[in-house]
């Protein structure tokens, strides 16, 4: 019997102690009319060897490709030690550290994680994680509405070039509370500061500023921050964590800095893994800590005065506050945070800065290489590690042909952002070496039917 240790003798003795004849007897409180005999539609159990064969066969059917696709998930180097350690049973098979004395490992790790993320974003407080970047953004919006100075402001201003899926997720998650996400006008791939005047007269709880934005470029972060603060709004930064090693942290934007930062933690040691599990991070100014959703770990001392860690400010959470909690979140993404904390410790600030710089340099090289193919242009300004290219032909068939040649050529922007024309979002992380870039260039030239020198 898989994962059940009972011998026939054990079972008999246990039933005897209970005073039951069979295991079936133990279900006698379930009304007979509701009972079923089993789960006919579920296949018979397999041995580990048979399941291994099955899963290897299926994994092998997932074709390997050369990845120039980002759009919210990025292929970075993950040190071998990260998952060797994160999957140790003591991390992997523990749960939420409710019994602090028996969970100091997880608690200290989360405290270290909180310190790292607060430091990266330049803010004072971090929670212990949310599900992913999209839900972290949604929670940031909810938090901003709770923390807003204007008590009735239930609108968040969002830029046009925010991750379109994040916008959908946030709308799905805040809809029940009648919170509205209002799009700001854009020009040349970023928020149009001149058009902000159109929003005057409406009350907003906050503005969201992606960093970099979905097109890989830079919003006018200082101007937007100052504009929002002058109107009593909070500022939510939605950041790529790798970029923060290189770029001014949200806490230093404008005159007062952003109030909340959130983002997708996947670039920090989490495999692409077909879409998850990843983790969302959320940090804020100390003044907003009581509006924070999710777990928080704090340092304290034990009865002997020795330092230790415990979950804290739990009165914000659902298991205490129930219908008045800051969020319904309970389980978050603990194991991913474990991996990210190990990752950040291994690369350190200089290592992360070099990763970020290499991503930027490789993307710069990629853009230059692809723009050497006739008809391909890069219409927008500076970028971090993703950039918009316009193609002389509709994007979808080009990407299909590239995929057939084993190259993931990027994200087709034409459906979400038709104003950009035949536009594709390309990405080169630190893993894309010069040969990879050359292979993409040759393949693209082939698909577009343009002659280039090899």
């Amino acid at each position, binding site marked *: 019997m*898989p*994962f059940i*240790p*009972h011998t026939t003798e*054990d079972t008999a003795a246990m039933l005897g102690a209970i005073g039951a004849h069979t*295991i079936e007897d133990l*279900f006698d409180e379930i009304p007979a009319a*509701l009972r*079923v005999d089993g*789960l006919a*539609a579920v296949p*018979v159990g397999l041995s580990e060897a048979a399941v291994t064969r099955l899963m290897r066969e299926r*994994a*092998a059917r*997932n074709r390997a*490709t050369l990845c120039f*696709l980002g*759009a919210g998930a990025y*292929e970075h180097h993950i040190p071998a030690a990260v998952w*060797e350690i994160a999957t140790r049973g*003591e*991390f*992997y098979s*523990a749960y939420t550290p409710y*019994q602090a*004395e028996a969970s100091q*490992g997880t608690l200290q790790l989360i405290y270290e994680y909180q*310190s790292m993320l607060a430091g990266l974003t330049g803010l004072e407080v971090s929670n212990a*994680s949310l*599900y992913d970047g999209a839900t972290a953004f949604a929670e940031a919006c909810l938090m901003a509405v709770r923390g807003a100075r204007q008590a009735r402001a239930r609108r968040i201003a969002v830029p046009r070039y925010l991750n379109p*899926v994040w916008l959908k997720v946030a*709308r799905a998650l805040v809809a029940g509370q009648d919170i509205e996400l209002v799009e700001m006008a854009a020009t040349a791939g970023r928020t149009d500061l001149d058009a902000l005047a159109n929003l005057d007269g409406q009350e907003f709880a906050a503005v969201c500023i992606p960093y970099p934005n979905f097109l890989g470029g830079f919003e006018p972060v*200082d101007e937007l921050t100052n504009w929002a603060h002058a109107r009593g709004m909070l500022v939510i930064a939605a950041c790529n964590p790798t970029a923060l090693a290189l770029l*001014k942290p949200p806490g230093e934007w404008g005159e007062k800095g952003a109030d909340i930062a959130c983002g997708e933690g996947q670039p920090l040691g989490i495999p692409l*893994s*077909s879409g998850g599990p990843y983790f969302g991070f959320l940090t804020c100014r100390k003044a907003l800590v009581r509006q924070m959703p999710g777990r928080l*770990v704090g*340092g304290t001392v034990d*009865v002997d005065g020795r*330092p230790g860690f*415990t979950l*804290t400010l739990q009165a914000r959470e*659902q*298991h205490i506050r*129930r*219908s008045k909690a800051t969020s*319904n979140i*309970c*389980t978050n993404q*603990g*194991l*991913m945070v474990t991996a990210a904390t*190990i990752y950040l410790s291994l690369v*350190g600030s*200089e*290592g992360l800065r*070099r*990763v970020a710089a290499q991503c930027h*340099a490789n993307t710069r090289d990629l853009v230059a290489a692809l723009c050497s193919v006739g008809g391909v242009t890069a219409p927008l300004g500076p970028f971090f590690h993703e950039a918009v290219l316009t193609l002389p032909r509709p994007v979808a068939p080009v990407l299909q042909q590239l*995929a057939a040649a084993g190259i993931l050529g990027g994200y087709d922007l034409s459906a979400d952002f038709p104003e950009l024309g035949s536009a594709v979002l390309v990405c080169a992380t630190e893993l894309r070496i010069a040969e990879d870039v050359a292979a993409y260039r040759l393949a693209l030239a082939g698909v577009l039917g343009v002659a280039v020198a090899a």
Partner: protein
Amino acid sequence: MREPLIFDQGRPGRRAPSQAPAVAAATDDLPVGLIRRTPPPLPEVSELQVVRHFTRLSQLNFSIDTHFYPLGSCTMKYNPRAANKMAMLPGFLDRHPLEPEAHAQGFLECLFDLQEMLKAATGMSGVSLTPMAGAQGEFAGVAMIRAYHRARGDSARDQIIVPDAAHGTNPATATMCGCAVVEIPTGPDGDVDLAALRQVVGPRTAGIMLTNPSTLGVFERRIAEIAEVVHGAGGLLYYDGANLNAILGRTLPAAMGFDVVHINLHKTFSTPHGGGGPGAGIVAVNDRLEPFLPIPIVGRRDGAAGHEYRWLAEAERPKSIGRLSGFMGNAGILLRAYVYMRLLGAEGMRRVSGYATLNANYLMKRLADAGFAPAFPRRRASHEFIISLKDVTRDTGVSAMDFAKALLDKGFHAPTTYFPMLVPECLLIEPTESEARQELDAFAQALIDIRDLAFKDAAAVKSAPLTLPVRRLDEVRAARQLDLTWQSRTDSPPVRLPQTPN
């Protein structure tokens, strides 16, 4: 044993050089005003220091792999290693979520099969795998209930009924969905107070959220009547699948009259708890709610080369409540659950509920025979049960919390304490099917020994734990003198980067 913070182990300039590019690439084309001037405060340590530090931290934890972990409501059963290994095969792990479907047929087939098995396990007709934890599954469920009523033009239904013993996530979810929470009491036998339910249902009832077996560790016997009352009033029934482990292959949420279910795959289907996630809170629904399922969903069609699997999203599912994750939920966790379910098969799933229930009833009987007080002594335990220590507390001053801490010293993780809140000084004990009788006997003996000590030397119990890395922590201080980051402890000014980065 204590382990210094990783930040305090560093030395300026120390690194793990093989983990990052050997040289720093030029970035002088970036806007000057956006360049970071102060490096983030990350540790400066060697690779060995990192490995040693986090290995040592892991050793400060209790876990299923190291300790009996009878944490009620959390189903801390054995997490088979095969599930982890298979989910981390490069073909799954290295795949970008936006890769073309043609490149991902093996992955999509696993998810499609998983959807089908979850339909079988619940009796429902539609499944979405995207919710990333139980609480998100609850959100999806209540949002679907609201969308269903709205689609019928019945928009006055804004109340969600929740029993007083429910998980805190239930009322918190209702609030997130913009609903008012109506709480109903539990009767003395542990079942929902039907008379109270009849009084609160009406034209504002959107639905009811129930866990069955309930968080009190007993099966709600009048579930069919509850369904009749709620459906009769025009509301729908939400099944909180936290306790599905107790009934797997014995009854089906659909048979009980539920319209929507979430399942915590990290409980019933043994994906790792990971120190607090990631979970997965898939939702299953009947025909009424099927159009509203969150997207994406895996579909299958017959193509020239056999089955073809594809994502069904906005275009195919226009009534959906929308997307709940950046891609498709916790994919790697879904794969782990899939592997576990294939290892178990139909018979194995039924054995799960059988032996989980056997273990709980056996342990409850052992403790009752030893003089402990089950909360519902005349009821069959489900996969978990409650004992109340209120008499011991009254006689000795030793509380449920003291018992929990004393158990840690004896090498057992504590059961859930002080939940559900309506049973005073309670321990909610869930042994799970993967524990052997001998382990249960040892745990029962530990509780007996602690109680004996409580009567002889209460102060000794109250001083526990003594053998762990720390003793009882000052939680009041943690909340009043917030110390949430390493930076908050140090007064030293941040280091400034050189003006010309190398």
